[in-house]
C-alpha cells in the first residue's frame, strides 16, 4: 500500500508552543508560514518571556490531522529564530487559559441576571456604571465561550479576548 500523507479527514485542535528570539519580524515569519502553507490559526498569543535572553513565547492553537501537525512543527523548527517547538496537546498534560473582558449593558432584571451569571462563572467586575458592566473572566476557551453565549441574552455589547496561553504541567520547562 502506498502510504499517503492525510491532509483531509479528522482534524483535531493542537496547542503548539514556540520559543523564539524576540526579533522584529519573527511574528510575521510565523504567521506567514501558516498563511503561505495553508495551515489555520485558531488562536495566537505572543509575549516576551525572558527579557535578558531576548526570548518570546508564541502559543498557537491550530487544527489538522496528526500528519499536518507534524508538518507544522517541522516547518516552524526550520525558521531561523525559532529555538524550540512543542506540541502541548501531544506532549501533555498541560494547562491552558484565556482571559476575556466582556461588556454588557442593560437595566433591571437583565442587569441582575448578568450579575448572577457572572457570579456563577467567577467573573470579576472591572467596571460598572448604572447601565453597564465590564467583567473579567479567565478560563479555558470552552468556559469563555459558554459565558459569552449566556451574556448575549443579557445585553452583551462587546468582548476583548486574549488567545490561549498554555504551559506543561510538572517541574520541567519547554
Amino acid at each position, binding site marked *: *500500500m*502506498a*502510504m*499517503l*500523507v492525510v491532509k483531509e479527514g479528522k482534524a483535531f485542535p493542537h496547542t503548539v508552543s514556540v520559543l*523564539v*528570539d524576540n526579533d*522584529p*519580524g519573527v511574528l*510575521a*515569519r510565523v504567521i*506567514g508560514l501558516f498563511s*503561505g502553507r495553508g495551515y489555520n490559526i485558531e488562536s495566537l498569543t505572543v509575549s516576551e518571556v525572558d527579557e535578558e535572553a531576548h526570548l518570546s513565547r508564541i502559543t498557537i492553537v491550530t487544527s489538522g490531522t496528526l*500528519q499536518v501537525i*507534524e*508538518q507544522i512543527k*517541522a*516547518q516552524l*523548527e*526550520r*525558521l*531561523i*529564530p*525559532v*529555538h524550540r517547538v512543542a506540541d502541548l496537546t501531544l506532549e501533555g498534560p498541560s494547562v491552558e487559559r484565556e482571559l476575556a473582558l466582556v461588556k454588557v449593558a442593560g437595566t433591571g432584571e437583565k442587569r441582575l441576571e448578568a450579575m448572577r451569571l457572572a457570579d456563577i462563572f467567577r467573573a470579576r467586575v472591572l467596571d460598572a456604571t448604572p447601565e453597564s458592566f465590564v467583567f473579567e473572566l479567565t478560563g479555558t476557551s470552552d468556559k469563555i465561550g459558554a459565558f459569552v453565549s449566556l451574556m448575549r441574552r443579557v445585553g452583551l455589547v462587546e468582548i476583548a479576548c486574549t488567545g490561549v496561553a498554555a504551559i506543561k504541567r510538572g517541574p520541567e520547562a519547554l
Partner: protein
Amino acid sequence: MSSPQKTMTGAEIVLQALVDQKVEVVFGYPGGAVLPIYDALFSRKDIRHILVRHEQGGAHAAEGYARTTGKPGVLIVTSGPGATNAVTGLADALMDSIPLICISGQVATHLIGNDAFQEADTVGITRSCTKHNWLVKSTEDLARTMHEAFYVATHGRPGPVVIDIPKDVQIASAPYQSPNRIGHRSYKPQVKGDMEKIRDAVLQAAKAEKPIIYSGGGVINSGPEASHLLRDLVRLTGFPITSTLMGLGAYPASGEHWLGMLGMHGAYEANMAMHECDFMLCVGARFDDRVTGRLDAFSPDSYKVHVDIDSSSINKNILVDKAIVGDCAHVLEDMIRIWKTHAHKTNSAALQKWRARIAQWKKRDCFAYKQKGGGAAIKPQHAIKRLYELTKDRDAYITTEVGQHQMWAAQYYRFEEPYRWMTSGGLGTMGYGLPAAIGVQVARPKGLVIDIAGEASVMMTIQELSTAVQHKLPIKLFIINNRWMGMVRQWQELMHGERYSHSYSDALPDFAKLAESFGCKGLRAEKPAELDAKIQEMIDTDGPVVLECLVEQTENCYPMIPSGAAHNEILLGPEDEDAVSPSEQGKAMV
C-alpha cells in the same frame, strides 16, 4: 585578516566580511542606496565585481556560481526596484536549495516607512522567498549579521538570504568583528543521522529483493564527498539507481547501475522500477510532485527510507517507513560502514531477477527517435545528442532554460560528475540558463559552459549577453528554436484539445544577428547535415557564441507521465497519447 577592534564604515564592513568569508566574486548592479558600498568597492582589488544587466540575471548568475563551486553566490542590489528585480532569483534559489547572499541597499533608517524614493519593504517582500533575512538598523550589528547570514545560507539545507542595509548604516562607522563564532544561537541543523535508524535501514536494504536508490540534489549540495559515498554504496550493494533532475551527475550516467532520471519526463525503466520496487532509499530528494506522479499510486509495495537534512521534507507528500534526518554524506558514510562491519550480503538471486526485469524495460528504448537526413528538420533530441557527443570529452558545464529543451537536455546529455549541471528545477524559471552560465563561467574560466536554451525562455534574460561580452566570458548559447513555447504547446495539445492559445513564439529576432549586435559570434544550423560543423565552430570559437538550431516545430517530449497519472501509466510516444485521458484532477495540476 583585520584586527577585531578596527573601526570601519558600514560599507567597508560589508566588503571586509565578504573577504573574510572567502568571497572572490560578487555579482551586482549599482544604485542610490548602495552607492557607499560601490564606493568602497572602487578601491578594492581583492573582490571581483561582475556587472550584470538586470538584477534577476545577477541572482541567477550567483546561483550558477554557487552550483558549480559549492560556495555561496553573492549579489549586491540597490533598494526598491533593485531588490524587487532580484525576487525571482531568490525564490529560485530557495526552491533548489542554493546558498545565495543578497545584499540590498535600503533607504536611510529615518526614512523607512515614509514611501521614500526607491523604498520597498524588502524584508517583507522577501520573507517568504528566502531562508532568512535581516534589516540591519545599526552599523554595530552589521559585521555580526553578515557572518550570521553566511552561516545560515550554507548550513543545514542551503538557501538564499537577504541582508537589507539602509544607506546611513553603510555610511556610519563601527568596530569590525571577524567571523570567529561557530554555531548559531538558535539554528542548529542536525547533520549526524540517528544510528539506530540507519542500522534498521541497512538491515532492510540487505533483505530487499527489488531495491532502488532514488537520489536528489541534496547529495550534490552536501559536497563532493557525498557523491563519492553514493557511488561507493551503489558499488557495494549493486542496487540500481535513479536520480531527480536536480541530482544528475552525483552518480555517473555511464555507471553500470544507472537507470536514468526519473519523474514526469524520466526514463521508462527508472519510473517502472520505482513503481515495482520493494525497497527504496531516497537520499537528498523530496518526493516532489514531478517525481511521484499520482500520490496514491506511488511505489505501492516498497519499504521507504528517506534521508534528508530538512525534517520538514520528510512525510510531507509520502509517508515513509524510516525517516533519517541528517546530512547525506554523514548518513551514507554510516550506512556504508555498517554494511561493511556487519558483512551484509544482498539477496543475489533476487537481485539478478530484478536486473533482468529492468533489462526488459530498458529494451523499450524509451529515448529512441528517428532523425531523417537530407532536407528534413533537425530533431531537437538529435541536436542535444550531437552536442553531447561533441563536447563530452571536454571540461563541459551545462545550464538550461525551462521547457522541452530542458527535459531533452536532462535526457540526452549524460553527466559523469556533480557540479556540471545547473537547471531551474523547483521554480522552473525561464530565463535562468543564460545568466547561470555566466556565473558558471566566472567560476570556471577555462570550462566550456553551454546554455541549452529555448527560443522563448532565452528572450527573458537575453540582455545578459552584454554581461558576457563585457567580462570576456566565452559562454555558448545553444538555442533549440522550435518557434513554440514547446512545453506549453505540448500540454495544450494533450490536455486542452489542441487549442494553441498564445504559445507561438512570434516576431522572433534573428538570433545570429542579435548575437553579433552584442559583440558575440552568431551561428545558425538549419539542416541535420550542417549540425556537427556548426557545433564544432561554436566550441572552437574563443568568445561568447550564439548557435541557433532550427528544429522540428511540433516534436513532443517523451516519455511523459501526464499530471495526475501513476508511474506505470507513463506515455512512451505519440502512439500512446490516447491511452490516458487526463482526469479532471490531473488537469488541475501544474
